């Protein structure tokens, strides 16, 4: 019932936007800008491009709003537009999108060996920043899944729908991404720095 009410509200909102109500569109942007910024900021490393891409995402959504058939949640659709807009931008920038995934069978034990020793990071107390840095080095799909799952609290099913991947693959990538991050952080920080 709640979902139907939410869907009815979304329909009414989109109808107002299609009728030319720019305030309704501003409300739409305000409602979904957090989701879009999570995706764009996490997938696009170049800070100066991020805000423009967020704008492009919403303008693309506005142009195709009339084609939205409510076959999925609006948030799922918005996230999909943002994801593919980022992929398109990264392709233009000639950023390798899929290469790293092919190395996913590399034993996780070798990850720690690539990292610097804890002493070298003793002065760096900003673990959140270090975590963001490590995430930025991961394959695009890992970054996207971590973002949607942990920041936007989406289910495997929704993420699979957005990224057009099997649900099992989403779960597998998510688990592997977390394992990688945990190992990398433990290789750089002492456990008591991280977990206390």
């Amino acid at each position, binding site marked *: 019932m709640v979902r139907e009410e939410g869907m009815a509200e979304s329909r009414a909102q989109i109808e107002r936007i299609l009728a030319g109500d720019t305030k309704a569109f501003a409300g739409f942007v305000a409602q979904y800008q957090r989701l879009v910024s999570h995706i764009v900021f996490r997938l696009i490393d170049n800070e100066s491009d991020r*805000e423009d891409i967020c704008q492009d995402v919403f303008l693309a959504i506005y142009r195709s709003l009339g084609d939205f058939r409510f076959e999925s949640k609006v948030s799922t659709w918005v996230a999909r537009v943002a994801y593919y807009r980022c992929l398109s931008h990264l392709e233009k920038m000639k950023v390798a999108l899929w290469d790293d995934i092919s190395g996913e069978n590399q034993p996780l034990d070798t990850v720690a060996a690539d990292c610097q020793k804890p002493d070298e990071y003793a002065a760096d107390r900003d673990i959140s920043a270090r975590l963001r840095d490590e995430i930025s080095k991961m394959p695009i799909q890992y970054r996207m899944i971590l973002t949607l799952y942990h920041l936007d609290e989406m289910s495997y099913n929704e993420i699979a729908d957005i990224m057009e991947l099997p649900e099992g693959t989403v779960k597998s990538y998510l688990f592997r991404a977390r394992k990688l*991050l945990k190992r990398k952080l433990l290789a750089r920080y002492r456990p008591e720095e991280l*977990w206390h």
Partner: protein
Amino acid sequence: MALAHLSEDRIQDYLDGNAGPEQERAAAHLETCGACREAVREYESLYLGLADEAGFDLPADFAASVAAKLAPQPEPRAWFYKGIIAAVLLLAGTGAVYFFVDLSVLFDMVNKGLALETCLDTAVSAVRTFLSILGIQTNLLVFSGLALLMVGLLDRLVFAFRQGKTLFHV
């Protein structure tokens, strides 16, 4: 019987609440196994870090600035042409009325305070005279009007295409 240590996948399933029937067994194991509790604690901290939203802020006026990009902008060229067309029509209309209609009759009637009915009759007959004079070139006028309409429509279509909008939202 004590369970073997929880695998990392099982720990993640447990923390995600997706362990299904294993959820309770995993919880029971954690009560007795310090090593697994420590591993769970590491993942819990990682989950907290992953949910940290720092660094994702857009400007406070972001929504308004995106919406402002949609507001129909008056096209300077369109207003310029509309102004010229209105001025030309006004001048042409005024000139035509002075040229074809004897306004002195109307002024006389107003000055003499004649009945409204008489004024209307006189006005209608004046318009009829005006139309009969124009009737000689009616086809030419209709053709010119249609040609102008087509040019205007084409101009609007090209402009709409360039702006990426529909014809009626230019």
